[in-house]
């Protein structure tokens, strides 16, 4: 398995290219923006994009689909049926599929959005905006935050600590790191709210 990371300055989101060692059909997770750099990454490694996995429908994870679908004949997998009017193969909770030779498990983890999916390929989790380094996804209500936390606890945390996390925004991490450091997963720890001032010797 080869994995490549692409950062989109538009939306500050991560796109992941997953393919076999010898090129061929490949998977793109969350094409937030399709640019020449990403196209070069795909072509220089002898891939063509056959499958797109969407972690959720928000624009910073899907906007590249329009350009991508003009270049490649892609099959789009998502939990939401409505992705910019593209035909979508619906992925349901706790489902399994094999794409480009990779066994993929899919988990519905609602809270950040109702259609938030996490995909597991081998020991890597593609978590979108569900779980990121040091934080969980943003939510609009305390109810959706509770729902998100409960789903993470039930479906993500049981994986072992060496499981690698490739989030939709920010840096890669591992489940072992998040179990220790992620304060959003610790109900009794609260962050500091101090405001920076110009008088602080750290900054002057």
């Amino acid at each position, binding site marked *: *398995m*080869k*994995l490549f*990371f692409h*950062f989109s300055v538009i939306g*500050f989101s991560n796109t992941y290219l997953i393919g076999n060692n010898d090129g061929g059909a490949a998977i793109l997770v969350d094409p937030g923006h399709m640019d020449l750099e990403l196209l070069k990454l795909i072509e220089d490694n002898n891939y063509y994009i056959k499958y797109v996995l969407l972690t959720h429908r928000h624009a910073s994870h899907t906007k590249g689909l329009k350009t991508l679908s003009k270049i490649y004949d892609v099959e789009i997998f998502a939990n939401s049926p409505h992705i910019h009017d593209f035909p979508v193969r619906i992925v349901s909770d706790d489902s399994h599929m094999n794409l480009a030779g990779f066994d993929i498990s899919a988990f519905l983890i609602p809270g950040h959005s109702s259609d938030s999916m996490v995909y597991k390929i*081998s*020991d*890597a989790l593609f978590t979108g905006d569900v779980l990121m*380094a*040091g*934080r969980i996804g943003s939510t609009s209500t305390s109810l959706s935050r509770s729902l998100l936390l409960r789903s993470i606890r039930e479906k993500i945390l049981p994986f*072992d*600590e*060496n499981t*690698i996390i490739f989030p939709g925004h*920010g*840096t*890669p*991490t*591992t489940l*072992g*790191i998040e179990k*220790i*450091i992620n*304060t959003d997963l610790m109900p009794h720890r*609260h*962050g*500091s*709210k*101090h*405001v*920076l001032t110009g008088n602080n*010797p*750290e*900054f*002057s």
Partner: protein
Amino acid sequence: MFDFIRCSHPGCNEFAVTKYTTCFQHAENPESLQQEAAAKLLEKGIVGSYCLTHGEFSNLDLSKSSLYACKFSHGTFQDIDFSDSYIQLCFFEFSTFINCTFHEVTSKYSVFAGSEFRECSFTGSDILHSNFSGITASHTVFDDSDLYYTNFSSSKLSHVSFKDCNLKKADFYLSERQEVSFKYSNFEEALFFREN
């Protein structure tokens, strides 16, 4: 990516050393594995998709190395020169770095979280989109570096210098800082607190 092959030792969740069936700790001859790893690193070609966790490395000149999609988690690195190296998608979490030089390195999408850094220097580096959350760092210098989108949340920093750095989207949420300097850096563009 390094192969996601787990150690064959019953009950062990570690990833196996590349081309071996067990992890470093359960290897029959860990010494030779470590020497093999050091020799591989010293070749200074592109080291890709290599995994050896819990290794102990010291006194190596690994300057101008290229590491891609490797895993060296839980390692100990003492007196290692990583200057001018290129590190991408590599995992060094929960490691110990003592007196290591990372002068003018490029680190992208790499993970050093939960590690300890003592007397290390990252001057003049591009450390982009890398995970330093939960690190403990003392007497360590990041001066003149680009730390775009790098995560130092929940870190413990003592006598650490971030002078003249690009801190755009760098995350220092819940970091504990003692004798830390951000002089001449754009700390206003870093994240020090969150609106929950």
